[in-house]
């Protein structure tokens, strides 16, 4: 297909048009308006970097960044350990392997909003009931404090996302040649050694993928946050995506919200580009 040919462009037009109007144009438009006092309809003045300067002095925004980073760190660790654990379990050729895989993955098919509502019931009502049956006070009053809100989000996210990350680890674990494992077994390697010395190095690429997927997922989390805690109590469990949303659609401070959205883009894009860098580096090493 030649670049000059009409058919090349006809084949590309629908997606190029949609991408331009839906992603690129709003992106550039928003970038420009983040330097003004735009209120969503009109902008009267160009005000330079002052939205950005305000954003970095905005306690709520900074709190949201810190909360999101803490959430991301804890999530990455838990999701990956549990995801890998589940993957190792279901690749043991158990009778229930297929069933287990189906069950662990299931939460990922259901929307974050619905999952958040279900877990709100669990944390608020079921935890309370279990707590009073077993006499554990720590299970009472969940989601009413910042800590329980934080751990509530972590538990929900881990429960949902571990099954997704499991799928990625399974794909890599199953690609490890059987002969290699058998050879190691014949040479007298223990189960632990077979994992650590043979499987682990071959599965290493899955770690890069899973780490970054978990990280960018944690940064973009919105629906679960909205349904589970709605940022409460007192906005103390508000994550970045929600903080930007509220600045725009509760405070109607559009230009200011857009400057935060640009900062958000820089954070997320940096994470993604770091991943690309590591992937390329590994390909060179191999």
């Amino acid at each position, binding site marked *: 297909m*030649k*670049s000059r*040919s009409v*058919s090349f462009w006809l*084949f*590309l037009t*629908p*997606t190029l048009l*949609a*991408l331009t*109007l*839906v992603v690129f*144009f*709003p*992106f550039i438009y*928003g970038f420009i*308006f983040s330097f003004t006092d735009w209120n*969503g*309809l009109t902008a009267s003045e160009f005000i330079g970097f002052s939205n950005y300067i305000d954003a970095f002095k905005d306690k709520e925004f900074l709190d949201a960044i810190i909360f999101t980073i803490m959430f991301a760190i804890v999530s990455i660790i838990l999701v990956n350990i549990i995801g890998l654990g589940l993957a190792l*379990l279901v690749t043991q050729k*158990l009778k229930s392997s297929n*069933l*287990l895989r*189906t*069950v*662990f993955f*299931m939460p*990922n*098919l*259901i*929307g*974050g*909003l619905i999952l958040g*509502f*279900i877990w709100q*019931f*669990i944390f608020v*009502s*079921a935890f309370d*009931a279990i707590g009073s*049956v077993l006499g554990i006070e720590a299970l009472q009053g969940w989601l009413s404090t910042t800590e329980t809100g934080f751990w509530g989000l972590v538990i929900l996210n881990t429960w949902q996302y571990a*099954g*997704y990350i499991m*799928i*990625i680890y*399974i*794909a*890599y674990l199953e690609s490890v040649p059987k002969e290699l494992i058998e050879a190691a077994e014949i040479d007298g390697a223990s189960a632990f050694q077979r994992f650590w010395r043979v499987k682990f190095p071959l599965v290493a690429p899955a770690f890069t993928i899973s780490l970054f*997927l978990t990280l960018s997922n944690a940064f*973009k989390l*919105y*629906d679960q946050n*909205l349904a589970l805690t709605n940022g409460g109590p007192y906005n103390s469990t508000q994550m970045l995506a929600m903080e*930007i949303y509220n600045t*725009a659609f509760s405070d109607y401070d559009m230009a200011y919200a857009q400057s935060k*959205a640009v900062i*958000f883009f820089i954070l*997320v*894009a940096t994470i*993604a580009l770091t991943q690309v860098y590591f992937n390329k580096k590994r390909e060179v090493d191999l």
Partner: protein
Amino acid sequence: MRGKRRSKIILEILGVLLALIWLSPFYLMIVNAFKTKNGIFTDILGLPEEWTVDNFKQAFIDLDFLSSFTNSVIVSVGSVALIILFSSMAGYALARNKTKLSGIIFMVFVAAMLIPFQSVMIPLISIFGEVNMLNIQGLIFMYLGFGASLSIFLYHGAMASIPVSLDEAATIDGANKWQVFWKIVFPMLKPISVTVMILNLIWIWNDYLLPSLVLSADTATLPLKMFFFFGQYTKQWHLALAGLTIAIIPVIIVYFFAQKHIIEGVTEGAVK
């Protein structure tokens, strides 16, 4: 060998226990959806003492289930159909054209994946609002824009395994580009089309944020309606849980029949 067998049994038991823990939120949702308000108050963890389906009747009506389900189907099926149709065409054109320009356009599509939704959300809604496109048609067009990048990327990759000689043979037989693509190439892309369909369907069916900004109450999709419904029944868990159960049932039915394809599709989308 005996030790090995024993450890297998231990692993089986561990697996089943974990699966039960994983399913426990759904268990609590379903049993409590069948209880009366008092039933939940007296016992949350056990089975209902008296089963009631009144909650479901009420939730079905309040969720406007038939209408919100239909809206969800229209949005999801419409968007996914357009994404498959247009992304496969673009992936084909870009993969078969080896010029620098084609490479640049492909990179532009890939680069768009770096831009998170929240970074374009505010101007997007403002622009589409000004041209009166905050409706179902506008929403489907937006999903095409947000879904195209990954889908083109997947189609572009799959094209590598379809030999150019097939195109050439068809061209010699007198087929034009359009016919070559739809009669020869597109049918061979079926496996990747299934992947593209699954990935986009899961995401669009469950999406809340974008429809909440674009649609009005009379065209609300299921997640959107769920949000209003839940706000209405915050302290009435028996109704809220019945509504959540109803909203999940369609997804579970599809998962039951297509789980192999779904898990394969998700794996392919994530690993590439």
